[in-house]
Structure formats: structure tokens, C-alpha cells
């Protein structure tokens, strides 16, 4: 009788374990794949953001001729009116778009004039390696407050910079011919006004020959 009780108890326990297993055995490869799928994918995020949000928001950018004219006459007023900054930073960003005449072309930059006379080196479209957070932070479309882990937010910067280098700059280099006209949209980061404003160093987000 006692043995029978034990057998019944074991059978009930086995049945419960079957319905509510204490642990699951998962192949290592499956576990690794699940972890990778759950992890943040900055490249994928950047692609979606680029086409779905960034390129459809370029009309929010300030007109380059207006901005450059104000920088030339009153840089403090230009900063107050058109810039954005992050946290306690003294550096700031501009998000701009416009047209201009290409004055010169080198491996690292395409120099253009965007105001009246078309002879002054006013904007330098960056054609070399892209570093930093100007693309991520310059538009105001992304916020650190939305990312629990700042590593994810920083990875977005690298992924966006990669998109500029692979999708935008090759087209810019093909279009860049001294004397030609070009339209563009981009972001500029200003940390040192003496070095960064004249010409304004702009990371291109979109370019089009006219």
C-alpha cells in the first residue's frame, strides 16, 4: 500500500514536471541566435531611420544661404536662432540644406559658395572619413533619453556615419566638379568657432547635381 502511494506520488510529480517543466534544454546555437535576435541592431535601426525618418525630414533644415549670411555678420545670433546643443555641451549643431556653386574639390572636401556672389568658400561638404555624432545629434530627431544603454545610442552614430560614407559620399564625389552647381542637406558640428565656421564643415546627408 505504502509503495503504491509512492508510485502514485512519483507519477503525479512526473506529470506536473511534464506540464510545468523546471527547465528547458536549448541547443547552444539556438540560444545564441535568440540572444542575437533580441539584441539591438544598430545597422538595421540606422537603415530604417535613414529612409523612414531622416530623408523625409530634410525640409526641417534651415536654409544654408540664410544661415551662412547670419554666421558671417553675427555668429552669436546665428547660434541663438538656428543651433541645437546637447546636455551641458558648449558645442552645437546646425541642420541645413541649400544650393551652391562648387569652387574646389579634394579627397576630403568639396568647397562651395552658397550666398550671392558665389565666390566665397562658405561650406565644406565632408568627403573623407566621418567620425563623431553630428549626423545622430544634428537633426534633433534622435534622443539619448530613449535608449537605456548609451552603448546602443553610440552604435547608432557609427552606423549612420557608415551610411554617409557608403551611400552619400560616393555620389557626392561623382557629382563634384569645380564650377558645377549642387544642392545638399547635411549636419554641421561646431566645437571651435574659429576652425569650424568658415567654411562651415557639413556632413552631407543628401546631394544632387543641378
Amino acid at each position, binding site marked *: 500500500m505504502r509503495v503504491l502511494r509512492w508510485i502514485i506520488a512519483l507519477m503525479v510529480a512526473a506529470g506536473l514536471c511534464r506540464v510545468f517543466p523546471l527547465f528547458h534544454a536549448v541547443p547552444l546555437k539556438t540560444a545564441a541566435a535568440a540572444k542575437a535576435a533580441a539584441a539591438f541592431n544598430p545597422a538595421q535601426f540606422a537603415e530604417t531611420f535613414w529612409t523612414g525618418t531622416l530623408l523625409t525630414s530634410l525640409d526641417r533644415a534651415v536654409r544654408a544661404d540664410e544661415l551662412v549670411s547670419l554666421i558671417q555678420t553675427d555668429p552669436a545670433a546665428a547660434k541663438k536662432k538656428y543651433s541645437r546643443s546637447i*546636455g551641458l555641451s558648449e558645442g552645437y549643431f546646425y541642420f541645413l540644406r541649400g544650393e551652391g556653386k562648387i569652387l574646389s574639390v579634394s579627397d576630403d572636401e568639396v568647397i562651395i559658395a552658397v550666398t550671392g556672389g558665389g565666390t566665397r568658400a562658405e561650406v565644406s561638404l565632408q568627403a573623407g572619413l566621418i567620425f563623431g*555624432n553630428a549626423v545622430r545629434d544634428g537633426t534633433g530627431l534622435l534622443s539619448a533619453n530613449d535608449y537605456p544603454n548609451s552603448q546602443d545610442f*553610440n552604435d547608432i552614430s557609427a552606423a549612420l556615419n557608415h551610411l554617409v560614407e557608403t551611400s552619400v559620399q560616393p555620389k557626392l564625389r561623382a557629382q563634384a566638379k569645380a564650377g558645377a552647381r549642387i544642392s545638399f542637406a547635411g549636419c554641421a558640428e561646431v566645437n571651435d568657432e574659429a576652425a569650424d565656421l568658415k567654411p562651415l564643415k557639413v556632413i552631407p546627408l543628401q546631394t544632387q547635381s543641378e
Partner: protein
Amino acid sequence: MKTNWIKQAFAAGLSMAVLLFTQTSSAQAAPKQKIAVVVSTLNNPWFVVLGETAKARAVELGYEATLFDSQNDTAKEAAHFENLIAGGYRAVLFNPTDANGSIANVEKAKAAGIPVFCIDREINSTNAATAQMLSDSYSGCVKLGQLFVKTVGKEGEYAELLGIVGDNNTWNRSKGFHSVVDRYPGLKMVAQQSGEFDRAKGMEVMESILQAHPDLRGVFCGNDAMAMGAYQALVTAGKMDQVKVFGFDGADDVVRSIAEGKIVATGMQFPKKMAQQSAEFADQYIKGKRDFAQKIPVPVELVTRENVGKYGDYGKK
């Protein structure tokens, strides 16, 4: 009748004097509100400056402030939180030990109605702390990476000393640096080891790296304590001119070393600025403010031999 009037006036005067005296005494005896400053470690001068400055600013603002040392141990940090919740603290200025492991402590304080303001180090949550004031380590190390390439060149072997692997700052610094240096295939990282943000450990790790890789041309260190340790190892090996050392923090001894031409550069993080601002946030919260940005980046500035004169005492002069 006249005597009665005098007696009544005297009694009323006495009562008022007693009332005034007791009110003054009770006002004097009213305990100050308390703010806790919980710091990951006090075994590193940079964090001592961070903690002491936060405490001093809280005292200036009229609070009683206590500094707790977590000794880089999440369990000790948890015990501090238990104590400060039970001890009636009104706010916590917090430098966490672990981006994930410290979240539970912050959540406990939040559940007890105590706001937590993270300083310098982040927790991986956007709804536990009231605000997080964080050095922009990534951008700072992008700048250091650019200077590294300019100084060391586009070819050669280099090493990296990482900080504590559970800390986001470790990886934000490393990733910022590599976002630049990895673009130059001629630069080869031959060793990447943790020196745990510690000077002695940094020296020990650098000694062993030098034995295996005698041709190093540069070393990037995730903080200044490790940079000082690495430089000491290089002096012992007689390679201090061959291997260029880069740190991060803006510690006073490294700023002096940069001025003397020993260490090449560091990233100035402004611990005093962050600590003071966090104490002011806590004061504003206690007085009723609630709308704080969750993550507030604090810029990092590059300190080199060219501009070192502008920096010192853990900030800009």
C-alpha cells in the same frame, strides 16, 4: 486694580517670551534634511573629488550629507541603499558600480519615494533614476582616437587597457576610440586587457603586454589611473619615449604629466561640474521640480601639451 493690570501685563509678557524662546529653540533644533552620496570607489582620486564635491555642494545648499563608499562592490552598494532608505535620506547622488547590477538599488529607492541622480556612470534604465548626468565618453574618445592616429601614425602596433568590463563607460570609451582607429588597417591592436580602472593593475598588465609585444608604439588607457600605471611600467622598461600613452578622466597627476611631456593626452571629464549639478538637481527636486531630462551628456574636452595650461584641479582653470 492697577496691581492686577501690571501682573496681567507681566504674565502676558512672560508667556510671549517663553513662546518665542521655545519657537526659536525648536527652529534651531529642527534636523536638516539628509542627502546621501554613494560613490563606486574612493580608491581612486577622481572619484574622491566627485564624491567630496557632491557632498560639499549639498552641505552648501543646507543639507546634511553623508558619503558612502561602495568599494566597487554591488553588494556593498545594496547595503548602503538599504541603510539610506531606512535612514530617512531625501535624495541620493549616485555613482553606480554596475550599469545593470545597480538598477535594482535605484528602483528600491524610487519605490521608497527617494529620487536618485546618477553621476558620471550610467544605469541601463530610463525609468529608475530621476536623471543621469553622464560624461560623453564616446565623443571624448573619438577625439582621442583622432589624436592617437595623428601622433602614433597610421601604422604600427598598439595596446588597449580596458576598464571594468561591467561598466558602460569602459565600452563607450573603447568604442569611441575604435570608431576612429579601426579605420586605419595599418594600426594593429596586439593586446586588449582589463586593468580594472586601477593604477597598480594597469602597471601589471602593461608589464606583461610589453614582454610579449616589445615593438608597441602606443597604448590607449580607459582611464587616467591605468595611464599612470602604464607609464610607470614603460619607464621601468625604458620604453617611455617609444610608446605613446593616452588616458581619460582629466586627473590632476595626468594633467601634470601632459605638461611635462610624459603622457600625450587625456579627456577632461569635469567631475566637479557634474557633482555640483547633481546636488543642485536634488535640491530642486526636494523643492518641487519634477521635469528632469533622463540622460544629460556632459562634454569631454581633449587635454594635450598645447592646451594643458587651461586645465587643472579636475576642470578648466
